């Protein structure tokens, strides 16, 4: 493993736990030695965590416990922030491949909020979706599972996140582009424009 090689391109894993609901179990899972080891084994160099409004203590405790360079980090550089008012689009784009800046394609791990999922899907970077089990009326898991079934994302439980790294790497080669293309195999359905025109009584 040539992780010491200075010329190695950077490879970023970005984690977002969301801004509205607290999701400490996901934060604890990604700040875990087992997960960092899995990252390092898949060639990752950086981890960036959006830890949410009440995740700061956990994040700072981790920094104290594993200072930069300690073996528990498995050579991964780690950064974090609470949340970004302007949205995560800019940060998420840093996981995209950029040869001139020496970046290879990374991955995104996201809570199952639809806004974050859509934002990540549009980038065509492997995405791991982790539903928050604390949310009532949990339809988030349904969304994650359906997207996994269709081949867009990896759905994972937060406890199993270190195994999801390898699955995300496997997804990279066979992942479908978003938005879905309407192929000949798919059933034809109406478009929003057609429904509106229909209701308006436009005939064309």
């Amino acid at each position, binding site marked *: 493993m040539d992780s010491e090689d200075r010329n190695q391109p950077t490879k970023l894993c970005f984690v977002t736990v969301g801004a509205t609901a607290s999701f400490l179990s996901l934060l604890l899972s990604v700040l875990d030695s087992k997960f960092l080891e899995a990252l390092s084994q898949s060639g990752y160099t950086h981890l960036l965590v959006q830890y949410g409004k009440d995740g700061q203590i956990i994040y700072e405790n981790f920094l104290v416990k594993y200072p930069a360079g300690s073996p528990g980090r498995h050579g991964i550089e780690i950064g974090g922030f609470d949340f970004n008012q302007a949205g995560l689009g800019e940060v998420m784009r840093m996981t995209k491949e950029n040869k001139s800046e020496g970046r290879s394609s990374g991955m995104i791990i996201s809570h199952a909020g*639809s806004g974050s999922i*859509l934002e990540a*899907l*549009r980038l065509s970077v492997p995405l791991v979706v982790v539903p928050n089990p604390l949310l009532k009326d949990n*339809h*988030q898991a*349904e*969304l994650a599972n*359906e997207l996994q079934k269709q081949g867009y994302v990896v759905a994972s439980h937060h406890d199993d996140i270190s195994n999801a790294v390898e699955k995300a790497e496997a997804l990279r080669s066979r992942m479908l582009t*978003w*938005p*879905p293309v*309407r192929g000949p195999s798919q059933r034809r*359905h*109406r*478009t*929003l*424009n057609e*429904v*509106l*025109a229909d*209701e*308006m009584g*436009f005939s064309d």
Partner: protein
Amino acid sequence: MFSMLRRMPLDPSMYTYRTYVVSAGDNFSAAKAVEFEGSLLNRNHKAKEQGKKNNQPRDASTSDLGAVDHYTIVTVPRARRVHQSYVTAPFSTLHCFWACLRVLRGLHPDQNPLPRFIHSPYPDIILTNGPATAVCVILAAKTLRLVHYLLSIFPFGTPAGRKAEPRLTWDGQAPLDFQLRTIFVESWARVTTLSLSGKLLLPFVDRLLVQWPALEGKVAWKGMRKTEYVGALVA
């Protein structure tokens, strides 16, 4: 909503006047509406430039579509604020419903006088995807339609001997300036079950559109219009 309209794409020469209803405190959505209208204007300018280059005279009536006086943003009170008690929620919901009624009749204080080419304050079509406010708007539209229908059967206040102004056209359809057709788009996040708003609106709304195939064909009761699958609109 705006990613849907952008992808649709919304043609301002067909949907000539646009009213955006946002909930109180939702400055983000209001800013998005301004941004979206800006993009319509931009696109129109580009089309005009193109037209000039090709020496195609453009119809004067379509030349300024997307200009500021072709849309308005109206703020209505929230039906229920986050964490608001369920005891007071019915009152705030009524408050929201009342504001929606005023918007649909063109009487809300946020509304500017309509441009001359618009003949009726009533919208032709109402497109919603939000939660509680969407329920209020659609039920308000339905209420107006019901009142309108009842008045057409029982013409109160018309002097005896004078025939009531026909409120329905010959085939029993609502007149062209009183359409108020309603469309509710279920959230992309709902894969196999409708949201509470969706369940509440299913018996009332004219079209209920869903973004996942498993939700297609749901009906409030037998014989009513089914939900329609339209693919992922937010992509």
